[in-house]
């Protein structure tokens, strides 16, 4: 039981007060982001990838930015990518957005139970995936579906998982979007936040211990950095100088909690790296070139045994947390459009147009092509069934894969279930 507040203070000490963070804007508020400190593109220095972590804490408090207000790529972090690569990155961001749109709508149509978009954060996963090697192992959270898109994982296969249909490689065992694609270097997604962080470090340690050349990359949201596993992972990564790129996607919101509840009022998330002795970079997460450059830098650092890097991607979650969330209940509707770092797709498109390697017509045509690709994939996936139409897996597969070999108690329970279903006369008991 809490103690009663004391009416009369025994001394003349000032009364204590508890600080509870509060976001600047709530529903109905006019949004003004002018207080967000956005350093100019090209201003941040680019140290050598072999630099000691202690030598550049300044980079944890600024923003690495490449694309300036005139859509030019400037400064030492400009990765100087060929127009072909730039167009591929743009196309994959567009594909991701089209995929998200379609699947979000599929959930609203009752074709599946759940979906989560990455709207506004497309550059974070897509540009990073372009900067990593295909053999590098990714430990994503649930908002890095862009990694699979870049790695040319079939959209149909992703949708099969979302629909839990007959072709779902996870046999209907997982909530939609909790993909697993070992062949694409995409680790099984867990619902438990940040558990993948120490796992990625362990994978990277194993790779190093074996004298391999592959590195690991891991993602979590800024809200999830509050989990103990974030601390565990940073400690292990620093202690063993694990070849891992640790990404924090700071999209300002953890469901309804603004980033202040993860500590953002007092510091940056990249700054966490400083205390662990890890290289920390803070990048404009809506600038695909900055994300690419930072990832490439961190990957090179890891590959040359210089250890881990923590990258904070400063971005904005433009959509609700999930199909189960309504952001109008806790934040101003004006936030997504007022976000000072803009839209990652528009920014890269404008850059390509500015340098004469793209135009609005081609862009509109590409939008259509990607929408058509996704639509065709959806049609193919729905031919394998949708969740709304009931069970698609053999009933007894429920017991598969708990252990490598099924022990007696699971065999007994499986037999019991099959007998119950047979007796019940339910139509799917015959499957």
């Amino acid at each position, binding site marked *: 039981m809490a103690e009663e507040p004391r009416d009369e203070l025994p001394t003349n000490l000032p009364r204590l007060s508890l600080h509870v963070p509060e976001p600047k804007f709530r529903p109905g508020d006019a949004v003004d982001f002018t207080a967000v400190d956005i350093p100019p593109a090209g201003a941040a220095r680019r140290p050598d990838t072999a630099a000691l972590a202690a030598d550049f804490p300044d980079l944890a408090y600024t923003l690495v930015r490449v694309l300036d207000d005139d859509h030019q790529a400037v400064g030492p972090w400009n990765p100087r990518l060929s127009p072909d690569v730039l167009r591929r990155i743009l196309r994959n961001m567009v594909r991701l957005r089209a995929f998200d749109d379609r699947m979000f709508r599929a959930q609203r149509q009752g074709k599946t139970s759940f979906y989560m978009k990455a709207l506004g954060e497309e550059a974070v996963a897509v540009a990073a995936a372009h900067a990593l090697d295909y053999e590098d192992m990714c430990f994503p959270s649930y908002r890095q579906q862009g990694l699979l898109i870049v790695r040319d994982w079939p959209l149909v296969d992703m949708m099969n998982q979302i629909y839990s249909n007959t072709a779902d*490689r*996870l046999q209907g065992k997982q909530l939609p979007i909790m993909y697993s694609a070992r062949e694409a270097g995409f680790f*099984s997604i*867990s619902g*438990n936040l940040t558990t993948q962080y*120490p*796992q990625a470090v362990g994978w990277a340690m194993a790779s190093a211990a074996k004298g391999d050349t592959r590195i*690991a990359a891991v993602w979590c949201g800024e809200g999830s950095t509050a989990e103990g596993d974030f601390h565990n992972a940073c400690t292990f990564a620093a202690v063993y100088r694990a070849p891992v790129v640790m990404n924090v996607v700071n999209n300002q919101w953890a469901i309804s909690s603004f980033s202040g509840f993860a500590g953002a009022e007092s510091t940056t998330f990249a700054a966490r790296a400083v205390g662990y002795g890890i290289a920390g970079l803070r990048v404009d997460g809506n600038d695909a070139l900055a994300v690419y450059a930072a990832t490439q830098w961190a990957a090179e650092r890891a590959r040359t045994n210089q250890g881990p890097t923590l990258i904070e991607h400063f971005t904005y979650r433009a959509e609700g947390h999930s199909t189960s969330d309504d952001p109008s209940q806790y934040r101003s509707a004006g936030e997504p459009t007022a976000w000072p770092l803009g839209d990652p797709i528009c920014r890269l498109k404008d850059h390509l147009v500015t340098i004469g390697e793209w135009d609005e017509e081609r862009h509109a045509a590409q939008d259509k092509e990607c929408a058509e690709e996704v639509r065709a994939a959806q049609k193919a996936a729905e031919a394998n069934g949708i969740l709304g139409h009931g069970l698609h897996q053999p009933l007894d597969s429920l017991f598969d894969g*708990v252990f490598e070999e099924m022990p007696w*108690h699971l065999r007994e329970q499986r037999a019991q279930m099959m007998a119950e279903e047979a007796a019940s006369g339910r139509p799917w008991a015959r499957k």
Partner: protein
Amino acid sequence: MTDTAATAQPADPAADTLRMNMIQAINSALDLMMDRDPDVVVMGEDVGYFGGVFRATAGLQAKYGKTRVFDTPITECGIIGVAVGMGAYGLRPVPEIQFADYIYPALDQLVSEAARLRYRSAGEFIAPMTVRSPFGGGIFGGQTHSQSPEGIFTHVSGVKTVIPSTPYDAKGLLIASIEDNDPVIFFEPKRIYNGPFNGHWDRPAENWSKHPGGAVPEGYYRIPLGKAAIVRPGEALTILAYGTMVHVCRAVVEDAGVDAEIIDLRTLVPLDIETIEESVKKTGRCMIVHEATRTSGFGAELSALVQERCFYHLEAPIERVTGFDTPYPHSLEWAYFPGPVRIGQALKKIMSNA
């Protein structure tokens, strides 16, 4: 199960059989598996240079190098989380949690990750790790060096729980656990690291030198998981126990002159239900003994299984002799510990029931 009884003791005390205590047997199993499989790695707090606070990993780092046997930061959740990632890479980690009482910070990684990984990825990724951890009381360990949390893990689908009671079993079961492709929680009863304990704390301590379970082959052998051992055949009642309690029960039974059949479960999940069922149907009585607290302890599961499967053979209510539903005390240890007095009285009660 006839073959389980046969593997309970070394059947052939060949020339390569040595006398070992349980620590040496565990060390021997780790040494042997590291030698056979370059993917086996040992990690944990103080396990490297120092060789472990109980010496279980002594000499391994010098022999296999720092990248295969290494000290870790003091973070149990980190140790298990990193081990899951190493398993996903293709290694076969054997992490140590210094005391079972300190396994709780790692629960999320064990329950939500290691145990579910195969299932949730439909077999794409697995967690072939063996978590070693000293457990159990009887050493004046107080609240945080005495606990028996096995019931927490037997409740989790996807992990196996193994508890040896002799050096011979410890080595054979640990080898089988490390080779197993599922995550295994391997609890080592630290009270019997150096010798079998009969529950008489006021009598001189024994060591493993004369006990048949202290004869351990130098080389490779395995005791299959999921197979119990009948350590004392009998007709009057069936006693189900594991770890230290196997030895305490044996001493009580011999003092009381009751012809009990004592079954050392060795593996709690998967459980050797056939051996249990066969025995209780023969004896008509069943007593379950564990150090862990009573309510929702593993004894409750055993009792339910016996009741369901042997109901018409039972001649008396099933007895559970366990630790009390309190935190493990320090000075009142021998009042808490299910020792000869409590087990003896339960024995009288179950035998006097018509």
